[in-house]
């Protein structure tokens, strides 16, 4: 027991430590309250993400009060800095969507995660923007080739069918002739040859059927072509959209790299600690 007694802190020590914890907690709460009161964003993030107790976090943000506050604050700051950004929608209390300007077939391209906070180009979009090559039409050419192939394939099958049908013709004739020359006993003169001919005929007919099955009829062929043409059009339209978006990026931010750098710089500036907050910053 003496060893355990030695490790056991004294009541005084426990009390002091508990008081210190509560004190710290209170202090944190107070400075959090103050940060919210003065809308000191950098401070709010620092406390909220740092030492604020989990329970307190959850309680204070019960109905997304903190999220909403931060979202609104960030939204206002963002639009003040980037006049060309347009708000599209809030997809969750902490995730907001924006786009660059207004355009035909417009879509959200800039994402804001309020909780971090983080601002970034939607990854799929960024990928499309980065990899877009206006002069590269290989994707479209590929579809053109596929359409051509459809025709070629069907024509080849068609000519193969015709080839077989040509072979079948004399065989049928021969069979007919032999059948006419049946003897009174209802037997052909050369049984073996006759059977062989019948066999060849059967084989040829089976082959023709097989080829025909592989071949598209006209409606199927047209349907498949139309499907390809639809793909073709969709790609064209999407390329036009990306072109338009890149033109807007260039117009407002001179380049994609510059846009990304500006967005990052904005967050850095946004989180710069402020000494005291101006009294007139209470419009919110």
């Amino acid at each position, binding site marked *: 027991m003496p060893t355990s007694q030695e490790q056991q802190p004294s009541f005084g020590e426990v009390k002091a430590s508990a008081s210190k914890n509560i004190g710290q907690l209170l202090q944190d709460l107070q400075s959090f309250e103050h940060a919210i009161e003065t809308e000191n964003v950098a401070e709010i993030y620092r406390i909220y993400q740092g030492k604020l107790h989990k329970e307190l976090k959850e309680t204070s943000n019960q109905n997304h009060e903190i999220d909403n506050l931060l979202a609104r604050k960030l939204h206002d700051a963002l639009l003040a800095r980037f006049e060309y950004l347009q708000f599209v929608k809030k997809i969750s209390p902490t995730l907001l969507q924006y786009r660059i300007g207004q355009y*035909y077939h417009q879509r959200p391209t800039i994402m804001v995660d309020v909780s971090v906070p983080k601002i970034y180009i939607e990854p799929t979009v960024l990928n499309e923007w980065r990899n877009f090559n206006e002069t590269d039409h290989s994707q479209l050419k590929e579809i053109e080739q596929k359409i051509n192939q459809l025709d070629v394939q069907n024509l080849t099958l068609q000519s193969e069918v015709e080839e077989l049908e040509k072979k079948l013709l004399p065989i049928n004739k021969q069979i007919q002739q032999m059948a006419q020359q049946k003897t009174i006993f209802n037997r052909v003169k050369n049984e073996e040859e006759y059977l062989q001919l019948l066999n060849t005929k059967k084989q040829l007919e089976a082959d023709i059927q097989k080829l025909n099955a592989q071949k598209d009829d006209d409606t199927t062929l047209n349907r498949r072509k139309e499907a390809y043409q639809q793909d073709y059009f969709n790609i064209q*339209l999407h390329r036009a959209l990306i072109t338009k978006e890149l033109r807007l990026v260039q117009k407002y931010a001179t380049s994609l790299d510059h846009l990304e750098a500006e967005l990052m710089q904005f967050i850095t500036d946004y989180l710069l600690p402020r000494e005291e907050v101006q009294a007139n910053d209470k419009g919110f």
Partner: protein
Amino acid sequence: MTKDSKLEVQEKEVMHFSESSIPREDIDYTAVNEEMNIQTVYDETKQKDHQKILSLIQAAEDELADLKLRRVIMEADFEKLLSLFNHHVLNEHKISTLAKQILIEYISYELLRPLSAIDLQKGDSFNRWYTKHFQVIHRLDEQNRLIFEFQLNVLNPSMNAAFIPLLAFDLLSKEVEIFDHHMASLIRLWYEDHILSRNQLALFNHDLNQLLLYAKKLGFTVEQSLLDNAYELIVNFTSQRKVSELIIDRIFIKLMSVKEYDFELVEQQAFEILLDHQQKVKFYLDENQFAQITIDSAQQRRSILDFLTSYPFLVPLLIGSE
């Protein structure tokens, strides 16, 4: 105008000659007959013959006068042709059908003269002209205006396009009206029926404008028209049919493929097409999905045919969906 009065004098001179010579003999015989008081069948026949001779002379004189008129027509310059037209056609002074035809043909030729550059030739029928690019028919309308109808040559003769009336010359007031609304027929023949090519329409626009330019040189006032290259285009249209999203998509694709062009979304259903040289086409879709279009060629002076053949991808916007 002095030439007109000279013509009248000519006729009167002839008439005077016939009046003065024949009745004198007539009176002599009547006097004798009254004295003798014997009226024979022979006399009656003779009197009938006399009437016959009078009308034969009249017919011959008319014919001679018309021949002389035709000679005057042939010798006339354009101004003289116009005054002859004014006198004989508008004021309905005596003129034979043939002379009238010739008069109108000569005036037509003078108005079509610039087309000699594309081999203007007289056709088989009296009012038809041929050129390398198209045929022309001239005719008078109810107000005696000279109308020109055009039919562009097509490669496939079975697909003959109709004659389209485009120009009306008022020869008295010297004004030219252009039937802009028939422009749509030409556009359809090109874009929908594929009977005409874009190139043909572009050439036709050039030829037509040569005619307008020449008419102005001849002292005609040419009404402002969409077919005239002399003006900046600022014009509103409503699409003939509904405009689908597919049509707008295709225009968008085309615009994005050219650096100088752009496409702006102004509002939910309102768009702006930006072309080169500050030219713009604005349009919005009304509640029936019809496009209300404004074409603005900025400082560019060009006809609607020139504009649309330069930007053929815009034509579906005017026509709409099938």
